[in-house]
């Protein structure tokens, strides 16, 4: 049957069982939006900004494990996706982002709303395509989904010129995909796996280091079995959180810059660091020269380029985390490590994470713990900065795919649209964005989307009137020179203000009124006693977003903290 390129596109999306299409229209993609008119199988979710559309698709993908899909226009529509693509690329999130392009005969002419998005997005996507022939459209879309979801997942961009969308032809969708330059390895080498079992059995102070790969590959169950079978203590990277319950007796917490005392001490003391699905990111390792100085390293990762990049590795294993654990579990023997276990338990007992003091405001850690108690099965997203670190430290995560955060790129403005996507993909669950008053304003326009879609996303704003993480650095390392971080600042403030005072405007903006203006619920929480009632009230709202404006202590800090470039056991305020 002959069809327009646009109809072919929609057919291809249906073939991939796409439920939601996060989009924003524009001139050259009108044919594609026309093909969606009256569509029942694929729900078009109109974002209020293309960046919001990509983060929403990302939140959908991370929470469900399926491919998130976007459709935007050329030029500015396409360039607005770049931050979302880079976010997803860093954190291995499967996305297919379809951008419109000007007609083929106009490409290169500096046409209206033309951008070389394939060139621009090359380094922030797993792969990208410009569709130059109508006959290639079906094949390219199949390949795009295949590449996005297999191997180390990632975003794939498909740029489709307007006249490809309108060209009529009768090319069927291909049945199978074959890309000769792309054959990801899933199964690790059997000899290497056996070697890993040997070094684990012989270790005196072994430590598991779980990365995002454990969550992404669906290996959390097997990983928990491995921990139960061996009794080996566990640390997690930011992306590895939720691979094991946060309150699991063998879980020492997150390692790295804002890691727990127990986790960082364990890394620096262990004789075997057994990393699964992690990249050894600099925020996790601190100074590489002093990182895990006594440890032999086993490194399992699906991306060969991640192995032996930052730390020397004794046993490298290229494998998918789940496939690896399937092969490894039958070989794993419990090492005799009673002394090491009690050492790690003692660190946990004697140096737990302290409650963040609520000087003149709420305690952020208390707010987060209260949210975790009120909504124990929630999917939690965060923005970036203090809100993100406090959530990683204090929220009691139980299941994988319940903690969605921009780890690698560190994208402020990620959490709220991601929560929208997660809520659409998980209609029965509570989805909560734990935000700061700075980052929530980076994609606050998505309130429009959330209200229109009647999504009961809870946005818990830890409102301190500052871009808190940068302020914390300025307090710690720049002698309190609070430059460019005060969100209450007005033009008539002194240029060298280092102290919040009585004259500061109370609300900038008034989040309660702002939520109400959009038709959402807004609740302000000033006293500790109001936290519980506010959360109960939020729990009852099921048809619209809820903004909770938690007025936290203005100068609360995230502790412990390893200064940039220091060894990870050089912790401030551990």
């Amino acid at each position: 049957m002959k069809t327009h390129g646009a109809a072919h596109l929609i057919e291809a999306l249906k073939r991939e069982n796409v439920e939601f299409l996060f989009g924003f229209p524009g001139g050259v993609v009108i044919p594609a939006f026309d093909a969606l008119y009256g569509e029942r199988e694929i729900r078009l979710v109109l974002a209020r900004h293309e960046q919001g559309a990509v983060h929403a698709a990302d939140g959908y993908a991370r929470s469900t494990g399926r491919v998130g899909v976007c459709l935007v226009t050329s030029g500015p529509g396409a360039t607005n996706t770049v931050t979302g693509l880079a976010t997803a690329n860093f954190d291995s999130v499967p996305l297919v982002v379809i951008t419109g392009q000007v007609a083929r005969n106009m490409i290169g002419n500096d046409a209206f709303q033309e951008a070389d998005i394939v060139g621009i997005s090359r380094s922030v996507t797993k792969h990208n395509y410009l569709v130059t022939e109508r006959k290639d459209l079906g094949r390219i879309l199949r390949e795009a989904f295949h590449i996005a979801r297999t191997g180390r997942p990632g975003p794939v961009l498909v740029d489709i010129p307007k006249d490809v969308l309108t060209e009529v032809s009768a090319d069927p969708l291909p049945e199978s995909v074959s890309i000769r330059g792309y054959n990801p390895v899933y199964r690790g080498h059997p000899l290497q796996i056996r070697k890993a079992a040997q070094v684990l059995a012989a270790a005196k102070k072994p430590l598991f280091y779980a990365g995002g790969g454990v969550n992404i590959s669906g290996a959390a169950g097997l990983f928990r079995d491995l921990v139960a079978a061996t009794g080996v203590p566990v640390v997690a990277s930011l992306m590895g959180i939720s691979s094991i319950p946060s309150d699991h007796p063998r879980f020492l917490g997150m390692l790295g810059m804002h890691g727990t005392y127990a986790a960082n001490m364990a890394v620096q003391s262990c004789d075997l660091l057994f990393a699964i699905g992690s990249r050894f990111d600099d925020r996790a390792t601190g100074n590489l020269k002093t990182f895990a100085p006594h440890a032999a390293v086993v490194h399992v990762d699906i991306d060969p380029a991640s192995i032996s990049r930052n730390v020397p590795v004794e046993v490298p294993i290229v494998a998918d985390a789940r496939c690896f654990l399937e092969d490894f579990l039958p070989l794993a023997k419990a090492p005799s490590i009673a002394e090491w276990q009690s050492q790690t338990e003692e660190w946990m007992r004697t140096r737990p994470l302290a409650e963040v003091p609520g000087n003149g405001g709420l305690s952020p850690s208390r707010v987060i713990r209260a949210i975790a108690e009120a909504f124990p099965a929630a999917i939690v997203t965060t923005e970036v900065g203090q809100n993100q670190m406090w959530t990683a430290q204090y929220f009691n995560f139980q299941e994988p795919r319940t903690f969605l955060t921009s780890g690698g790129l560190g994208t402020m403005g990620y959490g709220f649209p991601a929560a929208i996507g997660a809520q659409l993909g998980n209609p029965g669950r509570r989805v909560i964005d734990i935000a700061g008053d700075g980052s929530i304003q980076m994609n606050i326009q998505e309130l429009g989307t959330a209200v229109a879609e009647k999504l009961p996303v809870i946005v818990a704003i830890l409102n301190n009137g500052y871009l808190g993480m940068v302020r914390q650095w300025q307090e710690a390392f720049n002698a309190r020179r609070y430059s460019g971080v005060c969100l209450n600042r007005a033009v008539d403030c002194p240029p060298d203000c280092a102290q919040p005072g009585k004259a500061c405007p109370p609300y900038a903006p008034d989040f309660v009124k702002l939520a109400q203006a959009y038709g959402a619920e807004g609740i302000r929480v000033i006293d500790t006693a109001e936290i519980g009632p506010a959360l109960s009230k939020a729990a009852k709202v099921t048809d619209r977003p809820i903004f909770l404006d938690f007025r936290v202590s203005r100068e609360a800090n995230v502790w412990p903290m390893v200064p940039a470039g220091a060894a990870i056991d050089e912790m401030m305020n551990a």
Partner: protein
Amino acid sequence: MKHIVSLLVENKQGVLARIAGLFSGRGYNLESITAGVTSDPTVSRITLACLGDDLIVEQIKKQLNRLIDVIRVTDLTGLPALHRELLLVKVTAKPSQRGEVFQVADVFKAQVMDVGADTMSLELTGSTEKIDDFVALLAPYGLVEMARSGLVSLERSRKSPQPGAARGSRASRRTKARERKERA
């Protein structure tokens, strides 16, 4: 140290940009890059000369392997291989100097492509070192213009039949073994 990496890639638009972009984006040092189609019109061969210590070059090869359009990565460094570069050079040569330039060209087996009133154009194919030497000898006459192609390389073939090797040359099997090792 210098590494010569030979790539087989999809013969599609934008592939060269992906490879060049990888080098610029990650701060790798690319000395030369050449590209041309192979006997299979859907496949191009790209020869890269890159600089870096072993760790960096290892990372470069892994990153190249990650590119979807890259079909195969072979590091020719340390393997028996043929390396050639093409030079076109225009030197100043007054009629009185032509004889000397002809002599230098003759020693290097360079071709004289063009003779003008007071310049001569020469062509030479050879190893990078040979071309460097040739250019050094011509420099005193005055180099007007010069173009070098960058390296093109091929792995050498085996010299004697291998018992029991029904399929695939030793070279290609060695390449596969290396690739397996690199993957592991």
